[in-house]
């Protein structure tokens, strides 16, 4: 069977993979900032809550989390659409890893910057938003970019809960054609291409963050 016949179904799956990746990366980034800032600079109850979330989702495996949400949660709670389940699991997982990146970058801003902010009588909130976060943001962009690629790769696991993503389509095609080499080679290449595009996008975002920072400064 030639590649031209395999490609259309794989591309349909790739489209689902792109949707999953984009949605869960954006949601994960929001979670990462909330949890990372809560753990790094929040009041203690929030800090404890964020730490618990981060440790649980970094400490257990994504596939376990995915199966737990898919098989176990409906037994005690609501039954959710598999696609939504997949997005929730991916976002919560990548958000926990991202939170540690955010927290690390916040803590890496030197103590002297906090002291200068105290000397100028900024409140704790002003210090975080005006002094610390703008300095931490460019530092966290490269590791967050790596996490986005990690998230793209992780989306392949949702094929296990019946979501028809690229990996799911590959499995179906193989079972149909028994033609493993072309099916999986094409699949790997498609993932690689998506990763390259994603990395270029994240590098663009990183540059934008730096330039945006400079723009703010120039407008003084």
């Amino acid at each position, binding site marked *: 069977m030639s590649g031209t016949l395999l490609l259309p179904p794989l591309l349909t799956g790739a489209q689902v993979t792109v949707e999953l990746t984009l949605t869960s990366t954006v949601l994960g980034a929001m979670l990462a900032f909330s949890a990372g800032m809560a753990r790094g600079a929040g009041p203690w109850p929030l800090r404890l809550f964020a730490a618990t979330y981060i440790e649980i989702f970094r400490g257990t495996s994504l596939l376990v989390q995915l199966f737990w949400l898919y098989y176990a949660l409906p037994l005690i709670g609501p039954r959710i659409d598999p696609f939504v389940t997949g997005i929730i699991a991916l976002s919560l997982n990548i958000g926990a890893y991202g939170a540690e990146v955010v927290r690390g970058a916040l803590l890496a801003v030197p103590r002297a910057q906090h*002291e200068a902010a105290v*000397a*100028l*009588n900024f409140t704790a909130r002003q210090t975080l938003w005006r002094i610390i976060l703008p*300095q931490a943001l460019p530092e966290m962009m490269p590791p967050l970019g790596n996490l986005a690629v990690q998230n793209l790769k992780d989306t392949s696991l949702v094929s296990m809960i019946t979501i028809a993503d690229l990996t799911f389509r590959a499995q179906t095609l193989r079972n149909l054609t028994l033609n493993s080499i072309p099916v999986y080679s094409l699949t790997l290449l498609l993932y690689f291409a998506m990763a390259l595009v994603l990395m270029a996008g994240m590098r663009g975002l990183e540059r934008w963050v730096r330039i945006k920072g400079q723009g703010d*400064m120039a407008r003084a």
Partner: protein
Amino acid sequence: MTDTPIIRFQNVSKRYGDLTVLDHFDFEVMSGEKVTLIGPSGSGKSTVLRILMTLEPVQEGVVELDGLSYRQPGRHGPFHASARHLHQIRSRVGMVFQNFNLFPHMSVLRNITEAPVAVLGLSKADARARAHELLEMVGLADKAQAFPAQLSGGQKQRVAIARALAMRPRVLLFDEPTSALDPELVGEVQEVIRRLAHEHDLTMLLVTHEMRFAREISDRVCFFDQGRIVEQGPPGEIMINPAQPRTRAFLGAYLPETSTG
């Protein structure tokens, strides 16, 4: 200078674990007075400034600034005062750090205008006008759009002084403001501080190892050793004719001419 103390330390003790930095320490500064703290490193002089800036809590004793106590009765936590109360204290004090501590992500102008706009509620236009005046005063009118990384150490410290002054403090603390500078850049920063000392009624506390400079600008010099003031008085007395042997030994190391003169 007036006769009312603006700063008062009474029986203050400050410890880090087993190390006692201030030991039943008493100290007063009059409004408008220019006081220099000298002494060997680790003698507690920088700690006095850091306590006044609310960067360090004290374990015992009374600290007051402009009648505001650093402890509120019934308050716990390291500072024994509410965030609001500390905010009031800080509105009267400014600090110039040894390592400048400029904000690297902001232009020089933004470094100076950020706090007046965000904290004092000044309009951007007013804050900028004031920043330009201050930059003029420290001789950096042309550097408003530059970023800290583009400046020399001496220029950074002059920006830091302008930034502190923009908040209109009543007390300005200088923590070894020239120690991190290359020798050839010390003069330009000292010149700015000297003009401030001579032309303003600002209360100034300076920690320095530059004895000649201390002598020029201070009304009073305090010699610190092991968490106490061993000897204090007008710079002429302390530096030319110290009474205490420890002061003499310390000054001998810094000012060879005092031992002979």
